[in-house]
């Protein structure tokens, strides 16, 4: 296995880690106005992700940095090409992050209402747009011989991309509901579970629809074959099992399967792309691949050493922080946000 493949995997892992972790953060943000009926309840909802949201977001920053370091052409084409969606994602993440920190620091109801709105929109919009972006990555976009995206904004909002976007919004909301069921107690826990149970069939339908349209819209048949292999199939099986686990009130297991669904779905998209990182719809020759988009072997070697040393340490202390804050929260807990 050469280092280009290793870095494709590593970047895929970083984005997938971001979807798993920030995925439930987004879900919690979307559920905030739905599950939090009083101010104290809203604080409980926010505090479940309070110690973690910032660290979770660093997965995205690291994915961006790793793309820049290991695949500079991918970084350049993707972010200059998907310009306005990325801008919207950035603005959403900016107001959302500030909102977590600011909302409970003034008691005026309008102040809090505004920041709650920022959390809601700031969670929903990136979920939608990340779905749109990844659908387009797999489906292919107009990229010319100079590796530049020449498609414009509206080209990105095709029906397939919107379907994946909506699937991601609802999917992350379910993921967040599972997380809240696991992290809260009493009335809030029951409410979150009810929401999860209601969302689950919708996610099943959306995921199935995505699966079908992926066959029509991408070259998955060419990439993975008519039988796409274990990973997409397991993604389907885990979402089905998740419903059973929600029903049986196995909170921890339901969330675990929710995590697996996100991982397997994300992995499927990266498998469809591989070894390309951006598919050109104009000419397959113009596609960016892990070879023509990559950094020099020297840089990849340096970055591999860096990653081999640092990634395990990061996983260790981030995992530890989840252990420190493992307690369930209620309206009587000590809340910091």
């Amino acid at each position: 296995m050469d280092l280009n493949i290793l870095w494709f995997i590593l970047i895929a892992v970083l984005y997938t880690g971001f979807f798993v972790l920030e995925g439930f953060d987004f879900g919690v943000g979307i559920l905030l106005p739905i599950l939090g009926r009083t101010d104290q309840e809203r604080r409980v909802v926010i505090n479940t992700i309070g110690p973690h949201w910032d660290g979770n977001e660093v997965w995205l920053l690291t994915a961006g940095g790793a793309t820049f370091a290991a695949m500079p052409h991918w970084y350049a084409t993707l972010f200059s090409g998907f310009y306005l969606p990325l801008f919207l994602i950035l603005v959403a993440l900016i107001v959302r992050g500030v909102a977590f920190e600011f909302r409970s620091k003034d008691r005026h109801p309008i102040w809090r209402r505004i920041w709650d709105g920022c959390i809601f929109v700031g969670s929903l919009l990136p979920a939608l747009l990340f779905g749109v972006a990844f659908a387009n990555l797999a489906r292919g976009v107009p990229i010319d011989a100079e590796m530049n995206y020449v498609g414009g904004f509206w080209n990105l909002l095709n029906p397939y991309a919107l379907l994946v976007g909506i699937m991601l919004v609802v999917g992350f909301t379910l993921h967040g509901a599972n997380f809240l069921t696991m992290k809260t107690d009493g009335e809030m826990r029951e409410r979150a579970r009810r929401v999860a149970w209601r969302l689950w069939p919708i996610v099943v339908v959306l995921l199935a629809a995505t699966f079908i349209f992926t066959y029509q819209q991408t070259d998955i048949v060419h990439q993975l074959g008519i039988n796409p292999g274990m990973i997409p199939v397991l993604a389907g099986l885990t979402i089905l099992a998740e419903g059973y686990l929600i029903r049986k009130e196995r909170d921890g297991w339901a969330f675990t399967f929710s995590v697996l669904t996100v991982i397997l779905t994300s992995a499927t998209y990266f498998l469809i792309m591989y070894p390309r990182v951006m598919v050109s719809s104009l000419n397959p020759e113009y596609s960016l691949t892990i070879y023509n988009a990559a950094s020099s072997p020297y840089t990849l070697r340096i970055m591999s050493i860096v990653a081999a040393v640092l990634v395990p340490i990061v996983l260790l202390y981030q995992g530890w922080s989840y252990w420190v804050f493992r307690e369930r929260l209620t309206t009587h807990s000590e809340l910091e946000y």
Partner: protein
Amino acid sequence: MDPLILARLQFAVTTIYHFFFVPLTLGLSIFVALLETLYVRTGKTVYKEMTKFWGKLFLINFAMGVVTGIVQEFQFGMNWSEYSRYVGDIFGAPLAIEALLAFFLESTFLGIWIFGWDKLSKGAHAAAMWLVAIGSNISALWILVANSFMHEPVGFVLRNGRAEMDDFLSLLFNPHLFVQFPHVLMSGLTTAAFFVLGISAYHLLRQGESRHGFRISFQIAAIVGLVATLWVIMSGHSQAQHIVQVQPMKMAAAEALWESEDPAPMSLFTIGNEAERRDVFAIRLPRALSLLAYNQLEGEVKGINNLQVEYEQEYGPGDYVPPVAISYWTFRIMVGLGFLMLAVVVYALFLVVGEQLDAAPRLLRFLPWLILAPYLANTAGWILTEVGRMPWVVYGLIRVEEAVSPTVTAGMLWTTLIGFTLVYGVLMIADIYLLRKFARAGAEDTPFLQPGPEEPIPSIVGD
């Protein structure tokens, strides 16, 4: 409007704005960690009170720094895609390492610090803040590794139509980094010191209950401030001497020195005509620039016109003169404020040692205003550093017009420029509102988190 101008304007807006928050994070994290360590060591509640008080202001500021930093990670790709392609092989690495080494550290342990007051031992809790401080300052180191490459490219070869890294260690041992990093680190501490001095002075005048705590804060900040301000000035001096060697055009522009001179005079005050490259009115101190550049009373400092000729021979036809008035005045604002801060902090420390602080209400009333001084100096310093490098993005390698994204249109740039400016403007108002509120409230009143209204919030959906 030319997309290039808009892209540059956007970089200026987002980066300058981001750097309003960074220096305070760098310095105040160390300050809070220090206070909490004193609390752990002595067990005195006054230190805990102060840790919490400055911690609140730190958190408000930190949030702004973090979210505006997200833009920094992506905007090279957005607006400067040709730049990203040309130097990504080198420039991307420190950015990725920064995220992996520093961002994870500071964000995870800040989460632990905020929420872990009664979940960790006292010592472990203080250690979490030290890790935040280390993380933030390491992040500054790595972004300056990247920035130093732009000023003094090292450790690369030109291959495959781009610059490729061939020596990672020489990136880390870039001479530019060794003059720049201490300067930035110490300007962070200076910013924090004046922040603490200003707010403490406000409370010392008001005779509040937590007066004792603010007196301690004032004393620590005066000592730290003196060391940091002196160090900023000294490291700035060595940076300037280094710039004379590696980017003589920047120094010539900062001094509005049109022709090479030996010995070279230093401008005290110049009104120039930038288009015709001549002085309209100038007061110059003979030999002073040679003295500053070389520590001796003679030595040639190259002038703008001579360098332009030299560069045309080396790089081909083109305009190699950066905006002179901007370079000249930002240099003076930075240096002037630096010496003002030094004078004030010396005086403040003198009063602290002589226990005469209360007899100097005028200083105490002036200090809150001086909180702005490091902000202006930091901004001016960065404008000088970056504008003075023009037209180069990476010195001698790639020019600004070659670096911009070819597919991003003026319309797209207007959208994002206006969007960022509006969002940043509104957030600045909220940030200052909260900082003012909690800075004025003192240590004992106004709990950080306030209970909200009890009554249910109208739901957007049914049960």
